[in-house]
Every structure is written in C-alpha cells, then in structure tokens.
C-alpha cells in the first residue's frame, strides 16, 4: 500500500563556519554518496527531500521501501560535506510522513 519510507536526517558538521547549506546541496551530497557506493546502476533511486530546515540542518527524505537499506547505508557512510568533516545522523524512520 505505502511503498515509501520517510527518513528524518540530521547533518552534524565539525565546524559551522564556511558551509553553504541549501536543500539542493543536502540532497546532492546524499545522491553522490549513493552513486559512489552503489554505482550508476545500483545507486539509482527516486530520492525526494520533502522538507528542509537550514537552521537545524535537518530534513525529511522520501525513498522507496526496497531501497531504504541502501540509502541508510549511503547516508551513514558520508564523511565530508563541502570538504568539512561531518556525519549524518538518521534521527527517525517511519512509514508515514506525519509521524515525523
């Protein structure tokens, strides 16, 4: 019925100073990581950023259910955001967007 899963993802940077944070950069870094770890065929999915809060550095992503484990792995393995050491924390996952 509901084929998608929703992820609440938070970006934690080592230093806040020089990073330009926009929804496009946020989604881009996740897509790049997917392409690097799972390649052109394995890393293709419909990834959608539903909501993004620049001040909290937090966003809600929508991914197909069968692709959620790959997306979670790729998000966890990101180590740099615009050359600044960082890590992504998946705060919560849910089947319904309203629960987040």
């Amino acid at each position, binding site marked *: 019925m509901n084929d998608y899963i929703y992820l609440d993802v938070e970006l934690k940077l080592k230093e806040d100073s020089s990073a330009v944070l926009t929804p496009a950069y946020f989604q881009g870094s996740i897509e790049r990581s997917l*392409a*690097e*770890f*799972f*390649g*052109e*065929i*394995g*890393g293709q999915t419909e990834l959608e950023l539903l909501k993004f809060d620049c001040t909290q550095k937090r966003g809600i992503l929508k991914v197909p259910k069968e692709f959620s484990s790959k997306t979670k792995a790729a998000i966890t393995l990101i180590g740099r955001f615009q050359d600044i050491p960082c890590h992504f924390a998946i705060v919560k996952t849910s089947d319904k967007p309203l629960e987040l």
Partner: protein
Amino acid sequence: MVRVKNRYIVVRIAPKNTSLSSLYVKEQVLAKCILNHVEKYYGVYGVGLLEHGFRVKYCNDRTKIAILRCSHHSYKFVTSILPLMTSVGDVPAKFNTIYTGATIMQCNKFIIKHQQNFLDRMVGQVVSAKERQEMIKRVIEFDTS
C-alpha cells in the same frame, strides 16, 4: 563442511576490427577492465563483493575466448555489465557471454563443443589443405593452465 561455490563465465571477445587475428590482451588487463566497469556501474559495494574470488582463469588470444571465475553470489554483477563493455585495454571490442557453469570442467566441455561447431562451419570455406590444417591446429589448441 561448507563448500565455496563459484560460477565460471565463458565469454567470447569480439573485437571491432574483425581482421585482427590475435587480441594482445593479458589476463591481468582483462581482469582490471572488468573490475573498473563493475566499480562504475555497481560502485565500491559491487567491487567489494566481487573481488573475493574473482579471477580470469583462461584467456585465449587466438580464439578470443576467456573464462572468468566469480563467487556464486556476485556473478550477476559481471554478467550484467559484460554487454555494457565496449573495449578491453586499448582494443574496441564487444563481450558475448556464451555460457555460465558451476564447474570449470563443464566450461571446458562447452568450449570444445563450441570450437567443434565453429570448425564444422569454417573448414568447408577454406580451399587449400595447408591453410585448413593451420586453422584446425589454431582452433583446437586449448589448454587450461
């Protein structure tokens, strides 16, 4: 006791320049080329899975046939990227998967049968006896080192 399962893939390398009598491609070059393509299409995850147990077991320059060994759970990474490969080393070429087997003996049997069929078709077209002898020698020359 758990047995390590492998898959052996028999590929025919078809160079773009069909007049090429020999492929001057070493086994290491072929292996590296395939691993690079797997990395491109399946990322470091794909290479990580494939690297364990991957080896080019046999590569014949003249008959342009190669046998690749992969582990049982990662052979689909190789078979799915072979049609997407357009060159090996510097030579533009196509890769045709002709057989996938579980043991190298089955692959050997298949290749011998395949060569026999090829000979049956080709021998009739060669006019001089000397050339025919040469061709038979070249095609039959098959050893699994």
